[in-house]
Each structure stands twice: as structure tokens, then as C-alpha cells.
């Protein structure tokens, strides 16, 4: 390790950043959005649903939260061929695309975490808000969508964004499905060009800069929300 081989990075920059990092960002944004929507649905069910629906959602959330993400990735990837085959009534398991499987996995996984955050946010809104809205003549649904939920989201916005940053880091685990996300692309080039040291240091640096700046932004947002 006398002469660092930086040309491996510069000559493959577009593959690394556009193909690799692009896929990481795409998965993060899509799954964070899907997870937030799905998580809000789960939170509503857990708060206002019938008794058995509440039990069902809370056991689902607790189950997913207590097993490793890699295991969740494997569950979805290796079981979905059978589920798809059953759905379309095919005789043999249908091969499922790793990208589609990752999309589903992370959306389902994030939904559990977003469910807990939104639920905590909703519970933090004082009861008087709901009573006052009801007294003004809003329906139950209106009370939730235009009074409770906006306050809950604003209150938990910093945590929701921090969770998305955690997801951004977790997406690197698609490595186990051999998808070429940022880490996957770097690994490929490192093996081809024998530049493992430079490559992983570069990857760590990019992750560090992105996460550091985003976290700083969240702290500022938190400060602004707290002082107003």
C-alpha cells in the first residue's frame, strides 16, 4: 500500500455515483415514502382499530422490530417466489427481481418503525385538541386528518427524518442480495481493480458527509421547532 490507486475511483466515478449511489438514494426515497404512508395506516389501526386489528398490528410491528433486517430481507426474497406463484396460480415458484424484493422489504420494515413514531406523536397531542375540534362540528375523520395528524407529524418531523437517515444507511444491506447499490458497486470495482482500501475509504467518506450534513440539518429543524 505504497502508492494509492485513486484512479480506480476517478475513472469509475459515474458508475459509482450514478448507478450505485443513485440506487441507494432511489431505494431510500421510495421506501421512506411508502413506509411513512403504510406506517401511518398501521398507527391508525393500532390506535383506533378494533381489538383484534390492534393485536394483529402490534404483534406484526413487534415481530419485525425484534428480528435482524438481514433476516427480513431473506424472508421476503426467498418466500415471495412462492407467494407470487400462489397468487397467479403458477405451478412452480416464480423468480422475483431482487430490486422489487428490496423495495417491498424496506417499505414493510420502515412501516413498523414509522408506525411507532407516528403513534407516539398522535398520543402526544393533548386530548383537548380533539374535543375542541369535535365541538366545532368536525367529523371523526376530519378531526384526525386535519387537526391531530398535522400536529403529530410536525411534532415528530425531526425523528421521521432521522429514521430516513437510518434507512439510508440500512439500504447498504441489499449487499446480501448482490444488488449494486453504493457498497455493491464499490465492492465490484474494488475486486476488479484491486483497490479495496481506496474504495471502502471513499464509500465511508461519502456516507459520513451525507449523514453528517443531514443530521446537522435535523438538529437545526429540531431547534427551530422547539423555540417557536
Amino acid at each position, binding site marked *: 500500500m505504497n502508492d494509492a490507486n485513486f484512479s480506480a475511483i476517478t475513472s469509475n466515478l459515474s458508475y459509482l455515483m450514478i448507478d450505485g449511489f443513485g440506487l441507494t438514494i432511489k431505494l431510500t426515497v421510495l421506501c421512506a415514502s411508502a413506509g411513512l404512508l403504510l406506517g401511518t395506516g398501521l398507527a391508525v389501526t393500532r390506535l383506533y382499530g378494533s381489538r383484534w386489528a390492534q393485536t394483529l398490528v402490534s404483534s406484526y410491528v413487534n*415481530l419485525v422490530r425484534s428480528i435482524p433486517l438481514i433476516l427480513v430481507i431473506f424472508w421476503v426474497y426467498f418466500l415471495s417466489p412462492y407467494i407470487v406463484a400462489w397468487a397467479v396460480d403458477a405451478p412452480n415458484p416464480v423468480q422475483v427481481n431482487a430490486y422489487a424484493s428490496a423495495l417491498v422489504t424496506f417499505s414493510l420494515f420502515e412501516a413498523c418503525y414509522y408506525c411507532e413514531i407516528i403513534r407516539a406523536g398522535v398520543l402526544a397531542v393533548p386530548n383537548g385538541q380533539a374535543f375542541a375540534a369535535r365541538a366545532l362540528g368536525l367529523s371523526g375523520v376530519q378531526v384526525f386528518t386535519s387537526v391531530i395528524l398535522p400536529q403529530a407529524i410536525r411534532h415528530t418531523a425531526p425523528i421521521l427524518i432521522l429514521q430516513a437517515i437510518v434507512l439510508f444507511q440500512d439500504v447498504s444491506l441489499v449487499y446480501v442480495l448482490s444488488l449494486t447499490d453504493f457498497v455493491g458497486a464499490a465492492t465490484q470495482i474494488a475486486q476488479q481493480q484491486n483497490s479495496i482500501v481506496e474504495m471502502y475509504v471513499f*464509500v465511508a467518506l461519502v456516507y459520513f458527509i451525507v449523514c453528517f450534513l443531514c443530521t446537522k440539518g435535523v438538529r437545526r429543524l429540531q431547534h427551530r421547532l422547539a423555540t417557536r
Partner: protein
Amino acid sequence: MNYQWSWSAFYDLSGDGVSTYAHNLVCGAGWTIATALASAVIALLVGIAVGLLQVSTDRFKRCAGAAYVELFRDIPLLVQIFLWYFVVPELLPSTLGTWIKGLQYGAFFTSLLAIGLYTAARVAEQTRSAIGALSRGQLIAGLALGLTTAQVFRLIVLPQAFRMMIPPLTSEMVNLVKNTSIGMTIGLLELTARAREMQETTFHTFEAFSAATLGYLVINLVLIGAIQVLPALKKGNKVQVARSLPIEEVMP
């Protein structure tokens, strides 16, 4: 859908021709527990030390603590494990690097170091916010009684802070157990890796992953139970309801 159910697949001989899949899975759970325990020790020791640095009155020490937390929190654990496993031995003097690469349980030692130092950054943040949540009067009163700063921290501040840290620390330890599965990417044969191995050779996907899921559930339930029971076991120690930290201070 024609899925071949067979729970007896656990008793089939695995690829090595000697042990059954059930035996391999139990060994895998053993490695998961061993990695988790060893890295929990590192995480607690380093984490509390870094947390104390962060509340120091010395500006330089505070910056060092904050830098540690930022560095280990803003890089994905997978990348950190790769850095420790592939990059660090290359950067060390070549004889030392070769010795490290030839270690028998290299994947195990790398995993516990990487996971331990990664979790330490989170424990440090919890220590810092727990100490910050204590009233300053505690420290001042201790000093006024003639205790040294070290004694005040050891006898007054840390015991109270630790009690407050129990709920967030519990969930961090559960995360730590889950994170040990990332060790499989560098060849640690822990529970997830063993389940994947069984799935790959027998195609009994459902059975293999169910066993691993059950394994993690049991490990985590025992862990949570142990953390709740341990403080109560201490004689003469009235069980105090731990005051949990505001959610903003501990998330993620």
C-alpha cells in the same frame, strides 16, 4: 403453489456430512450470543467513557467525544465492518497485518470490535443525555460535601444516570443482538448465516427462517427479562421506576 413442507429437515445431515442442520442452527445461535455479549462489554465500557468525555468541562475532550460519536454514527455498520476487516489490516505494518488476516476466528473478533465500537457511539449519546438530564445541584452538592469530581461522578452522578438509561439501553442491546447478523457478510457463521445455509441447500425456506426468527425472539426476550430483573435482584435495593428519557433525546 407446491411447497414441500418438512419440519424433519432439521434432522438431515448438513453439507459437511457430520452435523445436522438443527445442530448448526444451535451453534449459530451460540455465536450470535457470544458476539453480542462480547460487543456489549466493549459498547458499555467505551460508550460510557466517551459519554463522560462529552460532559467534560475541557473543551478539547468534549470535541473528541463528539467527534467519536459523529464518526461511528454516520457510517453504516456494514461499511464499518468492511473497513475493519479488509482495510485496517492493509494499513498496518505488513507483519502485523498478515498475522491479523491469519487469525483463526478473524471474523468473530472483527465483528465484535466493529459492532462494539458502533454501539458505543449510541451508548455515549445516552450517557450524555442522561447526565445532562440530572439536576446540576447533584454535582454541586457533592462537591460541597468535599468529594472529588471523580467521586461525585462514581458515587452520585453515574448511578442515577445509569438508572435513567435502562429503558433506552435495553432497546440498544436488542439492536446490538440484531446487528450481529451483519457479521455474516464477513463469514461469521451466526444464526442468520446458518439459516441461509440451510435454505440454500435444502430449499426449506420457511422452516429455516422460522427457526432463526424464533431464535432471535427467544434471545431478545431473555435479554429484556434479564435487564428488568437484574436491578431488582440487588439486595436492599428498592425497585425504582426508571424515568425514561424524552423520545427526542434518544432516537436514533
